[in-house]
């Protein structure tokens, strides 16, 4: 498997990680993929395509055949575990990729497209606010639950704390994105207003 060239996590790495975490079937991993990374938006068939592929590369192996291929149970091979752990522990020396569609639109937009661009940014901001609300809800639910009940070994406590940090980070990410888009939307609205008023000023002479 090729290691990703950006800071993003590939679907194959996520699938490998889930099988390292716990041996599972393709159907099981597909379900866990959507539960664990609900906002990653990988294709619904990511587990179906990646798991046989990872097995071909010797990173996974089938340990029990099911009634159909999606019910074959896979586990990670030592090579797969080593590759995944290397990825988790790797220092992030890769530059973060900026492939934001809005950035590109700002580069390419023409004056007559400004109004549509404002609407696109507003829509993106609304989406971010809605993602923020969902992430904030998960964070509040986590904080309301308190520490894990019952006997909690250090590993369980560690996992629980790590989950809290991940949830908090998600809230912060969506919050920062919504804040950025709100700022961008206000700037573009100002520009649009200026552009419209300069048209109005020019019309009597130009028209």
């Amino acid at each position: 498997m090729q290691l990703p060239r950006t800071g993003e996590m590939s679907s194959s790495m996520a699938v490998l990680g889930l099988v390292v975490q716990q041996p599972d079937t393709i159907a099981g991993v597909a379900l866990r993929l959507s539960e664990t990374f609900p906002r990653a938006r990988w294709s619904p068939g990511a587990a179906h395509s990646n798991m046989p592929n990872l097995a071909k590369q010797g990173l996974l192996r089938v340990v029990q055949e099911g009634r159909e291929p999606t019910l074959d149970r896979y586990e990670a091979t030592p090579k797969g575990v080593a590759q995944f752990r290397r990825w988790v522990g790797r220092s992030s020396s890769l530059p973060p990729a900026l492939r934001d569609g809005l950035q590109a639109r700002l580069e390419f937009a023409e004056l007559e497209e400004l109004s549509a661009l404002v609407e696109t940014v507003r829509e993106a901001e609304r989406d971010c606010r809605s993602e923020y609300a969902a992430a904030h809800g998960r964070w509040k639910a986590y904080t309301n639950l308190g520490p894990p009940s019952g006997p909690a070994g250090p590993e369980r406590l560690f996992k629980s704390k790590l989950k809290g940090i991940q949830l908090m980070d998600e809230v912060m990410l969506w919050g920062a994105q919504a804040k950025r888009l709100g700022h961008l939307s206000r700037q573009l609205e100002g520009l649009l207003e200026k552009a419209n008023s300069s048209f109005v000023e020019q019309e009597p002479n130009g028209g």
Partner: protein
Amino acid sequence: MDEVLLLSEVSKAYWRGDRPLEVLSNVSLHVPAGAIVAVVGERHEGKTTLLKIAAGIETPDHGRVLFCERDLWTLTVPERERLWGDEIAWTSRARPGLDWKMRDYVGLRLAMGRSRGRRGARAKALAALRRVGAEECGERFWPELSDWQRMLVGLACGIVSCPRLLVIDDLFDGLGLSKMQAAGELLGSLTRELDCGVLMSASGMEAALMADVVWLFGDGRLRLMSDQTSSGGEIVEFPTVVRGSRGTGT
């Protein structure tokens, strides 16, 4: 949840020379009892004006401010002042104007209002300092305190009169994430204990983590980011871990 505060279509402008500068434009929000409502926005955009109007310190140009269903601006001045002394509390990062020991600074508002007397006010101030875990600050002066202790003293000032509405202006900014979490836990427990509503402002999104309702403020307008008061939040699964060796919790 009972409504402690309702702001309805509030507007406010300041005059800059011969031009009005609108800082609040038809702003509406509500604060239920037992909830923390955060308004997040850049500095100098008008958050403090919004909070002052909510606390009855500043008049709106338009709109209504209802505190426990009473319109603040139809009350007489003494009635409003009484509310402000007892039921509505304001606290911020501002340092005390005079050199006070913190036990006197925290109890200042109580000592000034409703003839409680200095001794009674001091006892309540010490109780408030104890409640927030800053008992050792009672005998100290402001310059001797760390940022964290100043924040605790600010909270003690806020809760000393057991208010129904606590308005907190930029008290948590600059604390850093881990201290912010600790401050959030403390504020959450105080809010539940007093069953008061909290309206707070912050310039960073970190402070919003402690809130139940989050508004983004910019250009004089509010945008709702999240309201976890009615839904009670989404159920979140603790991480599923390797079978047999680690349990799962929900």
